[in-house]
């Protein structure tokens, strides 16, 4: 019995907000990310979850708008802040929760936790605990599509801070010279942990770095779902046509601290408040209402429905068996005849 939200719907060169089905799916997905992470945050606060946690609350439009441009057969690589990408690509909420709760039924059988959720079935090649670690992997998965004569696209998520790693440079260059079908989605939330983009780079936007590789780079309001989707769709189409990679930069903000150890000493309360007023979900709901795409009641019902799915995820995951130490030794290598 799966516990998923309805798949995202692409709308080509239309906006998501203009299409009721697409709008419903995208809004539900954003709620799912928000509510999943709020639940996780409180489980953590109540000592029911261990390890550390990187929440993307406030960045929902970036993950969901970008994933809306993908087909089921497309792939993603994700980051330490990956719950949104995972849900956007269609992951099961119970298996995600089970992983965070270190259960045998989790996506990684309790071996990976929040930073390593992968889901082969939905083309999620994995979150990554290494900043920029997924970027060369995305380029390679895209190379494979080319070598296999498939028209799938790989969407590679990473943060602003990741663009200062050598891995970013080498991988984007490889994708560029080989015209690989990959879309580099930079979720620029203004900080790499405590280090601001003003300090970490001398250019205004990460997209300005695209010129070094001879590929397109665009910067969009990452809290505007329609804007994110439009930019992502264009880059995905370009990649699928075999015209090579692009960088899409979504300007957004994380409401919560970087991780559990963050005291927010590097940014002001005012800045955080200001960004909270730019809530991607609120924004999208207001737009849907004013466009008449969905009514407030529909939206309220939809949010309530997602809330139930999260509740179910917690229930099912909590009662699932703990992951099993007995199988560890045999799990390091894939057995040669399997």
């Amino acid at each position, binding site marked *: 019995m799966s516990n998923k939200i309805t798949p995202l719907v692409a709308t080509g060169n239309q906006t998501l907000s203009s299409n009721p089905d697409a709008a419903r799916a995208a809004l539900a997905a954003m709620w799912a990310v928000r509510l999943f992470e709020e639940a996780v945050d409180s489980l953590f606060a109540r000592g029911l979850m261990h*390890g550390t946690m990187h929440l993307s609350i406030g960045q929902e439009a970036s993950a969901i708008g970008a994933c809306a441009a993908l087909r089921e057969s497309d792939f993603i690589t994700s980051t330490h802040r990956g719950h949104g990408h995972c849900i956007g690509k269609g992951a099961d909420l119970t298996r995600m929760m089970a992983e965070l709760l*270190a259960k045998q039924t989790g996506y990684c059988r*309790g071996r990976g*936790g929040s930073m390593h959720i992968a889901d082969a079935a939905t083309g999620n090649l994995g979150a990554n*605990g290494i900043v*920029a670690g997924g970027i060369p992997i995305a380029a390679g998965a895209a190379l494979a599509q080319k070598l296999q004569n498939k028209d799938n696209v790989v969407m590679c998520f990473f943060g602003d801070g990741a663009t200062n790693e050598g891995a970013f440079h080498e991988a984007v260059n490889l994708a560029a010279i080989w015209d690989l079908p990959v879309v580099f989605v930079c979720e620029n939330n203004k900080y790499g942990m*405590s280090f601001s983009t003003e300090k970490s780079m001398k250019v205004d936007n990460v997209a300005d770095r695209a010129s070094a590789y001879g590929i397109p780079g665009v910067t969009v309001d990452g809290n505007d779902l329609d804007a994110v989707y439009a930019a992502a769709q264009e880059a995905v189409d370009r990649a699928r046509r075999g015209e090579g990679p692009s960088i899409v930069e979504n300007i957004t903000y994380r409401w919560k601290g970087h991780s559990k150890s963050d005291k927010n*000493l590097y940014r002001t309360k005012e800045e955080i408040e200001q960004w909270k007023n730019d809530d991607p979900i609120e924004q999208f709901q207001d737009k849907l209402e004013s466009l008449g795409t969905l009514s407030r009641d529909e939206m309220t019902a939809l949010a309530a429905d997602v809330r139930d799915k999260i509740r179910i995820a917690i229930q099912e995951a909590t009662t699932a068996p703990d992951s099993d130490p007995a199988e560890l030794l045999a799990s390091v290598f894939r057995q040669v005849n399997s």
Partner: protein
Amino acid sequence: MTDRLITYSEAIREAIGQAMEADPSVFMMGEDIGVYGGAFGVSGDLYHRFGAERIRDTPISELGIVGAAVGAALVGMKPIVEIQFSDFTAQAMDQIVNQAAKIHFMLGGELSVPMVLRAPLGSGTGAAAQHSQSLEAWFAHVPGLKVVMPATAQDAKGLLLSAIDDPNPVMVLEHKLLYKTSGPVTEAAIRTPIGKSAVVREGKDAVLVATGVMVSRSLEAAEALAEKGIQVTVIDVRTLSPLDMEPIEQAVAATGRVLLVQEAPKHVGFMAEVSARLAESKSIYSLEAPIKRLCGMDIPIPYAPQLERAVVPQIPNIIDAVVELMQEP
């Protein structure tokens, strides 16, 4: 020795502060070591005491940072680099191994690289396989690097100050689980000599040789064993390279039984070297039992707490291993 108790983190911070006050060429680079105070809070208030120039926040660029430290060291500075998790030394291996470790020798001896690289290693925090490794064996295998692993607050301070004094590149591998533990630490800028193992408990029946967090676990196991009437010597290796075998060989000669304890995966780990040194020396003739190792399993560190505990030695495992050892042959 003082009876002032401070934490392992505080001891490291105190060492850095004292070194920076004493020598203007000492400075620190790393990710989020400034106003954030460090991922594990080690740099703490140093940023406010010494400013952004000398407590230098960097972008997420481990290779670049370590390389910059090498370059600064070549021209008279004494950089201390903090790598947020020792797992990320993987990003910087070229500068650590192909540059820092080789320059003094390879370039003929005129230039040298007085650089300190601090990095937290080890499991136990639920951070999973990419944030929990113990990679000390890699560095100990590299000619030109010195490698220390402080197991107490006092040594965290003393070994770091010695590392800063040293005209060669020194890897200081700290254990995450020790940061919040307290111990007596001398207030003066004391040095713990690099290249000296320490006997931290004496017992006539067997020897436990340990590194990092396994030292305190071995001491706790020793307490429990004493109640069973088994008296064990515990040796804290402290410096993995250059390795001081003398106290280990003496203790083995005296007891004839030895258990080597490390958190890192067993296969080709550091304790294999300790075992091989004993087996190729005259110590082998005084053995009354095989040279046993108790190590991490050859498995990436898992996230789930019960799995994570299962793959690295815990106190009960040490106790059992010693009891078994006493029954050999």
